[in-house]
């Protein structure tokens, strides 16, 4: 059975990964032998300089989902490269580093830093975090998406994946802009903009006022967006949005995604990614599919 996927020049051993910001692998909690079975690891988004994140409360439980407004709390690119990359490399799982910036200049600086790191699987450009107090996300504007992806692609030594937002009128316009600019792949979807209010105090529940909705609640929305984008672009799509089971993941693969990422459900069921992988293999055996490429985009309409 061939489960491997290529994005740009990087080969991933299987199509199951984790969504940025949802997966840790501290040795005290995780079985590293299990972590090594993943198709790729995507750590939490890194910015050029350290960010302290948003004031609490940062998360709120919703029906079959959650709102978050973490605000990309991270130690910055230099600290990540020095302290975390060597540990990730030990795992020998392709690493997709998620990065975000507030300007083209910062994106370029980030790329230059990561160009110095050998053996990265890909760089995922988070163009779509809804929690950074910016009026418009890069991924809400086809021109801005094109400009950033092009500038990055010109300099990057590793494949570039653009992570897109569901908070747009027409996802195909953004997906095509990223493809035209040279993106090697797309990640979708980031969270849907959302909020909650405490009626006792009449105050927003989240410290950031608004946040991003994720979890099984958003899955049908994500599936539709992935399906629509897959109709238009020829580059591989990494799909995420409420995936909890193999069945969920199969929907995305059939809709046209090349890889699937478990996100929010990592918090609830840490075994979910490996359950998804096992379930995809079982389905392929049952359906007598020998190559995952035969499954990808196999929707019958």
């Amino acid at each position, binding site marked *: 059975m061939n489960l491997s996927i290529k994005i740009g020049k990087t080969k991933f051993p299987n199509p199951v990964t984790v969504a940025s910001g949802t997966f840790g692998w501290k040795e005290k*909690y995780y079985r590293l032998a299990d972590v090594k079975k993943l198709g790729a690891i995507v750590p*939490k988004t890194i910015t050029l300089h350290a960010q302290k994140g948003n004031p609490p409360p940062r998360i709120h439980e919703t029906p079959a989902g959650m709102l978050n407004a973490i605000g990309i709390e991270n130690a910055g690119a230099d600290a990540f490269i020095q302290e975390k990359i060597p540990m990730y490399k030990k795992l020998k799982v392709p690493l997709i580093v998620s990065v975000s910036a507030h300007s083209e200049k910062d994106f370029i600086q980030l790329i230059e830093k990561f160009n110095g790191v050998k053996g990265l699987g890909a760089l995922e450009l988070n163009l779509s975090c809804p929690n950074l107090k910016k009026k418009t996300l890069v991924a809400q504007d086809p021109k801005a998406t094109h400009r950033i992806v092009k500038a990055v692609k010109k300099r990057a030594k590793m494949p570039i994946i653009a992570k897109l937002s569901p908070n747009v009128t027409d996802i195909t316009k953004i997906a095509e802009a990223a493809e035209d600019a040279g993106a090697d792949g797309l990640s979708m979807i980031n969270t849907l903009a959302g909020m909650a209010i405490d009626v006792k105090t009449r105050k927003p529940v989240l410290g950031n006022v608004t946040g991003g909705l994720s979890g099984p609640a958003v899955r049908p929305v994500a599936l539709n967006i992935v399906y629509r984008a897959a109709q238009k672009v020829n580059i591989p799509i990494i799909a995420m949005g409420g995936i909890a089971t193999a069945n969920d993941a199969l929907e995305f693969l059939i809709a046209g995604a090349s890889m699937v990422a478990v996100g929010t459900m990592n918090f609830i069921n840490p075994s979910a990614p*490996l359950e998804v992988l096992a379930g995809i293999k079982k389905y392929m055996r049952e359906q007598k599919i020998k190559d995952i490429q035969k499954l990808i985009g196999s929707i019958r309409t």
Partner: protein
Amino acid sequence: MQKVQKIYKVINNKKLCQQFFHLCLKPVSAIPEIKPGQFIHIKVSQGLEPVFRRPFSVARAGKNVEVIYEVVGKGTEILSQKKPGEILDVLGPLGNSFCKPPKGVKQVVMIGGGVGVAPLLALSDVLKGRGYEMVLLYGGRIKGHTFNMRTFCKNGCKVYVATEDGSVGIKGRVDKLYTKIKANAKETFIYTCGPRPMMASVAAFARKHGVQGQVSCEEVMACGVGTCLGCAIETRSGYKTVCDDGPVFDINEIF
């Protein structure tokens, strides 16, 4: 994928008093040793409602793992209906733990509010018989928040209770009981867990008398293992996660 994800069997789940439940669980396979202050993260339903796990400080740990909880929402409501023999998906033990009392400490003061008293019971289990003078100051809003404190007494604690409505013990908040604290900067150490305003009052008292101590904090949590950064709490050295950096912090770090 996490070695801390285990199946536990419900041994008992009974009302401890009018407002609180006492849940006794048995891990089906071996789990790491649980230290006082650590918590377990329970999936209360197999489906997606509610979606988050619920964190509970461990109240006692031996062959079985015990927690004390109050029904405050849909998660604890579902938990309260679990019957002996049912199985639960549990992550744990998670988080850090209470420190040993520093050298020279003679009086250990535990101050608990409501179900916040739970980790203090686990602490008293560990500190009993070590020559400390142990005092528990317990505050509840109403009679329904009070229960038989004999386990604390058996562990050698002097127990003092205050209720806001005066139905049990002294009338008022737990700060009415601060007179029981010797408040010697070098010889007293405070451990506290309860509602935030209560812990703030304990912190103010500790600071006034130069007494050191630790607090066990609570926040809404998703992952429980320091990944999502959702349970961030503001400390004097920036945001920390309650689940992994905590739940136990130096009293002066938080207040």
